[in-house]
């Protein structure tokens, strides 16, 4: 069964056609990759799912219910957690407080929220840094904090917007391990937008390729990398796989 169904959504910004008639399904319990070259419409698609913009056309169903046109906070309450490509920590708050903000979505009491936040920070290896101000974290830690905060809302679907970008290969592998573990242990469905092929190939069971706002290929990583259209538009210019 598909947890998330994106059905022929379109989004235009004035004259610019950012996404056109894009469709894909993310099955429950899976790690799904959305890739494409710069300007392919990945982040726009992502933002439509997350409730930042309403699509101009098409529909988005989450667990069978339409979510297109909902506000970002309603989408989150429905069970979709997201990270930001350009990280947005609450800089003045401590690491723990950042994650507690997320935890308050499902927990009313501060003590319960603190317990949930603490356990998530431990899982992501941020436990020892929980009392530091978020502004003092390094980039890899800030990316981890983004994930921790989104996880604290207990999402059924986790949207990851280029969480690997800017990480060194070893750091990238650590993140991959974290997401595998999340998916395996909690059954959290993950939709990841990535530029870093290494991470997508390692994680995603299925991939959807966007180019100029349109879906040009869908399938397993092996199928996608052999698809001539994909090779031409995307992998052709970037040979490292």
């Amino acid at each position, binding site marked *: 069964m598909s947890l998330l169904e994106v059905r022929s959504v379109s989004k235009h910004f004035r004259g610019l056609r950012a996404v056109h008639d894009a469709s894909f399904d993310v099955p429950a319990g899976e790690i799904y990759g959305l890739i494409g070259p710069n300007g392919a419409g990945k982040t726009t698609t992502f933002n439509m799912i997350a409730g930042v913009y309403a699509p101009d056309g098409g529909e988005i169903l989450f667990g069978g219910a339409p979510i297109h046109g909902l506000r970002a906070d309603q989408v989150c309450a429905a069970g979709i957690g997201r990270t930001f490509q350009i990280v947005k*920590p609450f800089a003045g708050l401590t690491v723990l407080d950042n994650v507690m903000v997320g935890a308050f979505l499902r927990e009313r009491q501060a003590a319960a929220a603190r317990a949930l936040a603490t356990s998530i920070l431990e899982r992501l290896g941020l436990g020892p840094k929980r009392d530091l101000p978020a502004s003092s974290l390094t980039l890899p830690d800030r990316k981890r904090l983004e994930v921790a905060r989104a996880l604290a809302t207990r999402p059924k679907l986790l949207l990851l917007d280029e969480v690997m970008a800017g990480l060194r290969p070893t750091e990238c592998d650590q993140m991959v391990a974290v997401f595998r573990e999340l998916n395996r242990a909690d059954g959290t469905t993950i939709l990841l937008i990535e530029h870093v092929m290494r991470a997508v190939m390692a994680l995603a069971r299925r991939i959807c390729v966007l180019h100029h706002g349109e879906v040009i290929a869908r399938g397993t990583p092996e199928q996608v990398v052999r698809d001539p259209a994909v090779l031409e538009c995307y992998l052709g210019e970037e040979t490292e796989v």
Partner: protein
Amino acid sequence: MNRASISLAILAAILVALPFFAGNYALSVATLILYFAYTGQAWNVMMGFAGQLSLGHALYVGVGAYAAGALFFYYGIGPWAGLWLAIALCVALGLVIGCLAFRFGISGVYFALLTIAFAEFTRIGFDHFGWTGGPGGMFLRVAQRDTWDLANFRGPPLMYYYAMLALTALAFLICSLLLRSKAGYYWQAIREDEEAARALGINAFRWKLLAVAISAAMTAVAGVFFAFYYNNLFPEQIFHISRSIEIILGPVIGGVGTLFGPLLGAAVLTLLSDGITEALGAFGLDIPGVKQVFYGLVLLGVVMFLPHGIWPAIARRLRL
């Protein structure tokens, strides 16, 4: 008990005991400090916690003061009942301003301008309403100052001091509880990054309105106190933008978003203002405006060297 609660207990004890060794002048200065500490705390809920800059808090002081004042003046209804009317009116006004601003995405400086606009046109309106007495003012009947009449909030300076102390303590308690609750976390998240806050399921519109409503309600109570303490109300004075700025200075100097900031800032500024007057008098300097110059220089110094306010620097040093 940790060091912070011990210091707080000592401070509370000193404030409670103050009237036993302070004269009437010192008591009136202390009342003024507490008044600014209280209104600063109320303003801090909106700006310090939720990041919404209000430059028109005199609006709530004035509306609160006139609401309770007019009930007493025309119908002889005491402030305990008038308080609720004052709170209701100010919350309603705050919600109107908040709805207008937050629904149409007015934020930051533009939101601040909107709060000034509301305070200003209320001032102009009150200058022209018949029932307020217009620019001529509204004067509440003053009873003898040596008997305690709690029902009508009439009494010696001691009574006003303790009333203000109780209000300040209550505001401090409410704010510290709020800051540790879901509301406090949500407000701070909105203050730090509203888009990220929304992505975590926070309905920013609703939570910002809550901050405005709480801040307006708290400030309304200060307005009622103002009416019954000073007994005369003039729109030109009570709604004037300089009154709004006065409310802000305490928490800004003390530390925006902190619990002790408004308290400390109010004390420093009021004592400084009085101290400068005394010092200039002692040196025989009697040039008009020289006090404001000194006052301005001190503010400049604090803003330049302690941009987060005095309290965070002290808290760090004392490891509170």
